[in-house]
């Protein structure tokens, strides 16, 4: 890039900070009008949860970096069995995470990563 050194900081401020925080500020202004346990808040919760889970599931199904070269069945099995362990343990988050990580790591090792 041939521009002055501050140009990239301006790009980050406008196309990064502003582009992201606009939505956070709109969220505050909207959320300020919602009452707890109103129908509108139920809908907002549903949309927020579905959005976050869509992002999360994409990380598992279409990962970037090293995991992109690993088989889908291994990632799905590690995540799925970890979730089953989480449910069986009485919803202990640590158990779910540990089981998933152990399955994935041993699977990757077995496949020669």
């Amino acid at each position, binding site marked *: 890039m041939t521009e002055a050194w501050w140009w990239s900081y301006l790009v980050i401020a406008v196309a990064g900070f502003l582009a*992201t925080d606009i939505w956070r500020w709109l969220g505050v202004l909207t959320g300020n009008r*919602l009452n707890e346990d109103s129908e509108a808040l139920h809908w907002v919760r*549903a949309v927020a*949860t579905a959005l976050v889970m869509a992002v999360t599931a994409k990380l598992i199904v279409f990962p970037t*970096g090293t995991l992109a070269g690993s088989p889908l069945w291994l990632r799905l099995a590690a995540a799925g069995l*970890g979730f089953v362990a*989480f449910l069986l343990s009485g919803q202990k988050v640590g158990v779910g995470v540990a089981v998933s990580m152990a399955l994935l790591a041993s699977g990757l090792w077995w496949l020669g990563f």
Partner: protein
Amino acid sequence: MSLDSDTRPASFWFYTGMKGITSLPALILMTSFVGFSAFALEAGISRGEAMFMTFGIWALPAQMILVGMMTTGAPLAACFLAVTLSSIRMMPMVASIVPEMRTRRTPTWLLLFASHFIAITAWVFALRTLRDVPREHRAVYFLGFGLTLTTINTGIVAICYGLVSQFPPLVAGTLFMLTPVYFVASIWATAHHSVVKLAFVVGIVGGPLMALVAPEFDVLYAGIGGGTAAYLVDRFYIRRRRRAGSAR
């Protein structure tokens, strides 16, 4: 559980929020930012720029997109559009947490400031812990957590930039998976309403499916469309049936 008033001062709750930095989600996020500093170096982003992005944007997907756009020399307007589309999810995330965080006296400027620190990790943390904090101190408590988490991760980028060029593949792959697996378990554990559990399932199936059908706007379709569908099914089927069941 949650008290309406509390004798302990706001500073106590700010400090309690700060201590959240040692929680599992905070530690997982730190490993992600170690990964980001390696990615930024590889992409030719300077140390200062990577730090400014971390503190100023505070959303890893948006940061990755902006790094990608900047290295290809895309014009400012194109960068803005790509980042802002990826950040729309912030609005319902913030809007769903604000009613739990404020009282009638909480000033709006404080919520606007605190909202900058909401990203997926902090959102999950707030869902899990806000209920145990007296309502009048929740905004300050969250600020203690968010400000500390963001500052520490900016410091991690400063220190790890150029230090870690790459993890061994086995470690990198396992670390990458840590974040989504943690979200799956903890968001289910914090789902108190049937509509949230339904939206959870719809999102997890809809995200990857929509990525195949409409890769540009997949998350928006799965989120807004799927979330709305989950809400309607919950309101007009599940809750109605439950009411009918309890009336019997």
